[in-house]
């Protein structure tokens, strides 16, 4: 038998027709379970420094001794500077940098986010490597305000002391830029975007002035976050922040170097995601992984370093945490050794992984190990989409057969003679003839809903901050009502058929699956976001039209009482299903998230708007333009009642 003929018969195999939902569920289960095996020793690896040029911790560090006196003075100076007005503060900072012997410049910037102006001025100084040729540079960053909004007294003082100390060395093969952004989000973003911008365009939301002084290509950036006042405070561990915008990560070598220097050379423990006591057990590794996935999927900035990563400048933040016995000099020596390591680089960091999930400061899962999880999730949508497509192509024979069974006078189902070689068979015509698919309406509906998704996207990212919670409430109400209204309109006005509903759902799931596969392209870019959206959208694979009204499918033996009882049961079931479905809608999930992390909705929306308009975080795009339309189409299918036969 020819292959096509075989496949045509396979199409009707009852096993195959029943398989897709189970297959899809299996994909989801395996996909989720996949993450749980990653912390095992067999599926993760010990980190290692891949770039041999770095030689982390191979140099003796000399930062210490009388530099401590200088540091204390700078810390006092920073404290005094913090007491004066912003203009005086900038002037004083510039003065200190100039006394150190750096070339000083300032960069004012202004962003308009959620109806508010954010203004500030970055101050930076350039330490020209005495024997360098101005082609490469590395950045030492100490934001005036750290990510939590505290004044970074000790971090800034340490950066100043280090700059003064670095100035005496002639070993630098790259220039060193000491950057003091006004805050930890907008300042670094303004600076690094101006550093790389081809044409300084001023838009309504963005006015970043160009940089008067530049060095060569940036090789790496290290930010110090040590917000301890003028009297000092010893710390226990270094928390290494590494997440960039949109889940982009710095090269693993930079992280490894920092960890190797801090823990190997200086004896300072390193933590990831603020997990201070990490016993390297399965449970702790899983927690670290979960925190990493959540942080990465948010795609938001996690520190001053985040803005650098999209520009292919590997960057990390060293943040001091806990109470311990390490002082600022240990952090200084760590930074010194780290800079010596970066200085050793002959090429841009490229050797090690750019895609990884950390399980501990020294253990990671590489992309080859974790990617199948997201791919399986994306696959589950595609499987359902294909199944729906096949179903939509079938002529409704089963019901005809049933009718035929009850009423014998009805004509037999149409048969067709199939001749293959010498063999002749009679098969129902429906099994070989695909039904005509009417695709215009489904395609139009899917397109319309995708276009409509720009309304929530636009409103949540451009309204004034005080209207954001109201906007979300409105969006929630609309999105919950939209499927019911739309399905009523479609069934009443356009008389949508079951087939069209199936095609519509198939289109939507294909878009989601492939866009998750594009999100799988996204999954290679931002695995976590693709995974989280995939899990949250997984119910969409199992949405089928709810039965509506008295169904013919119930056994007649139960009688009228039974029928009424069944009816009540069915209504309850429908109600539960609808509620469950509503619970998985994007806005409801957002509310749940706010409740879980106990943050007010306005704050969360403001953060998302900030990320969208300042740093180009595309998480809200994925939520509103990928997930939301798929949910709405699923909702329409759910409440359509099966459509016209």
């Amino acid at each position, binding site marked *: *038998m*020819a292959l096509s003929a075989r496949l045509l018969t396979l199409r009707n195999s009852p096993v195959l027709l029943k398989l897709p939902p189970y297959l899809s569920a299996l994909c989801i289960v395996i996909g989720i379970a996949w993450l749980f095996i990653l912390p095992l020793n067999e599926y993760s690896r010990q980190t290692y420094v891949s770039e041999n040029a770095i030689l982390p911790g191979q140099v003796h560090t*000399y*930062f*210490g*001794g*009388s*530099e*401590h*006196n*200088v540091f*204390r*003075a*700078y810390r*006092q*100076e920073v404290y*005094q500077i913090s007491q004066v007005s912003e203009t005086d503060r900038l002037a004083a900072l510039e003065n200190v940098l100039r*006394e150190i*012997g750096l*070339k000083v410049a300032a960069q004012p910037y202004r962003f308009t986010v959620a109806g508010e102006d954010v203004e500030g001025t970055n101050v930076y100084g350039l330490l*020209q490597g*005495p*024997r*360098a*040729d*101005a*082609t*490469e540079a590395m950045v030492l960053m100490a934001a005036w305000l750290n990510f939590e909004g505290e004044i970074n007294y000790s971090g800034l003082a340490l950066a100043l002391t280090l700059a*003064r*100390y670095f100035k*005496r*060395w*002639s070993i630098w093969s790259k220039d060193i830029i000491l950057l003091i952004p006004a805050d930890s989000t907008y300042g670094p973003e303004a600076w690094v975007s101006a550093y*790389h*911008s*081809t*044409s*300084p365009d001023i838009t309504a939301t963005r006015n970043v002035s160009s940089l008067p002084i*530049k060095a*060569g*290509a940036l090789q790496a950036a290290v930010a110090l976050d040590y917000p301890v006042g003028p009297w000092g405070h010893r710390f226990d561990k270094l928390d290494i922040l590494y997440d960039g915008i949109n889940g982009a990560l710095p090269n693993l070598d930079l992280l490894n170097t920092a960890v190797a220097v801090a823990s190997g050379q200086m004896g300072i423990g390193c933590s990831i995601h603020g997990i201070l006591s990490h016993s390297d057990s399965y449970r702790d590794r899983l927690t670290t992984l979960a925190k990493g996935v959540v942080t990465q999927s948010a795609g938001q900035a996690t520190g001053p370093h985040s803005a650098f990563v999209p*520009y*292919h400048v590997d960057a990390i933040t060293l943040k001091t945490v806990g109470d311990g016995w390490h002082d600022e000099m240990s952090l200084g020596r760590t930074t010194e050794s780290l800079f010596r390591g970066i200085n050793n680089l*002959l*090429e*841009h960091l*490229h050797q090690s992984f750019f895609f990884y999930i950390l399980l501990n400061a020294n253990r990671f899962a590489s992309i080859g190990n974790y990617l199948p999880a997201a791919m399986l999730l994306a696959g589950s949508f595609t499987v359902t989409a294909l199944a729906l497509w096949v179903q939509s192509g079938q002529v409704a024979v089963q019901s005809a057969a049933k009718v035929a069974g009850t009423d014998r006078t009805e004509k037999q189902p149409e048969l067709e003679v199939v001749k*293959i*070689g*010498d*063999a002749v068979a009679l098969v129902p015509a429906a099994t070989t003839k695909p039904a005509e698919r009417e695709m215009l309406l489904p395609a139009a509906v899917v397109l319309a809903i995708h276009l409509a998704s720009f309304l929530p996207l636009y409103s949540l990212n451009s309204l004034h901050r005080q209207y954001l919670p109201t906007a979300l409430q409105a969006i929630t109400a609309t999105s919950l009502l939209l499927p019911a209204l739309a399905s009523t309109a479609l069934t009443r006005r356009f008389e949508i058929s079951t087939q069209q509903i199936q095609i519509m759902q198939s289109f939507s799931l294909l878009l989601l699956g492939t866009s998750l596969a594009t999100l799988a392209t996204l999954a290679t870019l931002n695995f976590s976001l693709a995974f989280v959206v995939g899990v949250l959208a997984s119910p969409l694979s199992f949405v089928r039209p709810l039965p509506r009204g008295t169904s013919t499918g119930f056994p007649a033996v139960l009688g009228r009482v039974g029928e009424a009882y069944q009816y009540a049961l069915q209504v309850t079931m429908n109600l539960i299903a609808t509620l469950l479905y509503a619970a998985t809608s994007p806005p409801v999930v957002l509310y749940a998230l706010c409740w879980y992390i106990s943050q007010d909705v306005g704050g969360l929306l403001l953060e998302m708007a900030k990320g969208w308009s300042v740093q180009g975080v595309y998480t809200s795009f994925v939520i509103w333009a990928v997930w939301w339309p798929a949910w709405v189409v699923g909702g329409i299918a759910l409440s359509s009642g099966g459509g016209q036969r």
Partner: protein
Amino acid sequence: MKLAQLLALPATLISAVLAIPEYSEHLHLRPLPNGYLYAGFNFTASTSLSAYESQHFRYFPRSLGQILQHSDTRELHLRFALGRWDDESWGSRPRDGKREGGTGVEIWSWLDSGGGKPAVEERWSSLVNSLSGLFCASLNFIDGTKTTRPVLSFEPEGTHRGGGNGMELLHGTLPHEVVCTENLTPFLKLLPCKGKAGISSLLDGHKVFDANWQTMSIDVRPICGLGGDCRLEIQQTVDIVLDIKRSMRPRNDPIPRPRPVEELECDESKSYHASDTCYPKRKEGEMAWSLSKIFGTPVRGSCHVADGDESHDISLEVSPDRAVEVSHGGSNDTLASHEQNQLVRTMRLPDSARQHTDISLPQHIFQDSPHQNRPTLYASRQITGCGQERGGMHTVLHNPHTHQQRIVYLESLPWFLRPYMHTLKVLTHPTNSHDRPTIPLKPDQMYYTPALDRKRGTHLELLLTIPAQSTVELTYDFDKAILRYTEYPPDANRGFDVAPAIIRVLPSTHNTHNTSTAGNEIGQDSYFRTTSLLLPLPTPDFSMPYNVIILTSTVIALGFGSIFNLLVRRFVLAEEVPRSAVAVRVAGVLGKVRGVVGSLKGRLRGGGQGRGGGGVAVGVNGVAAEGDGGMNGVSSVVESRKER
């Protein structure tokens, strides 16, 4: 014009040129602000053209002379440079930038143009290859892609027969070349005293290459006196800027460790000043220094080899009220300026070869910061944009003077940087306004040679007039080419170096109101070079080709193998297969052999009982195997028939 160009050289040099001693050398020292010291070494040798042509060399280095003769070079300029000159704090450049090169190696020369373009290229190739060997530099990598023919940027410095006709200018750069001791040694070898005596004894690789900025130059040019006697002059210069403090560090403790607490100079006016809190005091003035401490050795003897060389060897440019001490051998002396309030003090080394000379200056606090000549122009050039596909070039030229300046801006770009000339924008605005540059500036002239892939780089030359006290921004966009993977250097991920832009400031003409305080006199042109740039290109993951090769080979082997197998194999019944005569015969022979062996075995064991038995058993096995294969064959044939 030619005479004016000669005047461009420092005053001390002019006397050397006119008096024409066959060899003279000179060291110029000038402290720069922020604790730096400029030291300019100058070695000039000359020979008469007739002696040169008859291969009679005395002070003119023979090795270089023969190369020049062989490649018909009329005038040669060779530069080795490292680091950068800090315009803002050090002021205008020494020698008006004329003896300065861009980072790496730069060479330009006028070659005899007889024989047409191929002959010139042949000469150029021979010149750079020979110089490569002579100076241990990768000059041989200056091929067609790195060579340009500038039109406006350079003019011959020498006097040439025929007014400069019959020769052609070629210019090449190697921005990635790291200048090192191996280049200094052959440089010193060209000198008559070879770095053993005279001021060249100060040139130690450790110090020269620890400088913040250093440039070595070799210039060969013919000069003709008024009487028509022509000489060939070679001028070698080494210009360095040393960090006084860093150079004075003792050799046994070169690491800049934190100083002991007692040695810290604290700003005690700070309210928080305490025994453990010390705000470092701003360094003022200049620390005490001496030649022997900075260069690690005093000047050993002198190199007064030529007749008639009466010029001074060392000049020192310090404020007139500064005490300067000179020690010759054991005797100390004070070096005073010849006239009151003269900035430059000069001295001549003693003729004795044994005596060591040292100059030392005590610590000095300036009353007012030392006056620096403002540079004629500030220039900076950067690559903008990120990503591996395209980028932009951004050059800022800033004229601080109150008169307009005409400049020639030369860029020679590698072929893999593909500029779009339609995006070239030259915008200007007054410096003191904070607006973005908006007024377009039209270049007076523009020469542009587009690049040819793997054959020729881009050559762009613009003649611009920069208005007084204004900033000019020059921008254009470019694409980054994708190289073949064998064209990447071993450190592919570092990026590729782009040669510095060369800016020639043309002499200001008299009709412009020239009230500047600039150091350059009327009628001189000066040169600037921007820093070199790093161009990141799209780089393949170099472990990838091997993975790809292995993977694709496997896939092709599997796919091709099975498909080929299906195509050429014919399924037939086992019975239908004709047994080849050879196979039958071989099988027969084998059967016989087995029979014989079996019978032999049987005979050995039990006296010949199993003779026939072994053979029969073999035959049965063979039949069984054949039957099996036959069954398979039958079923597959049946399948295929059904399909038909």
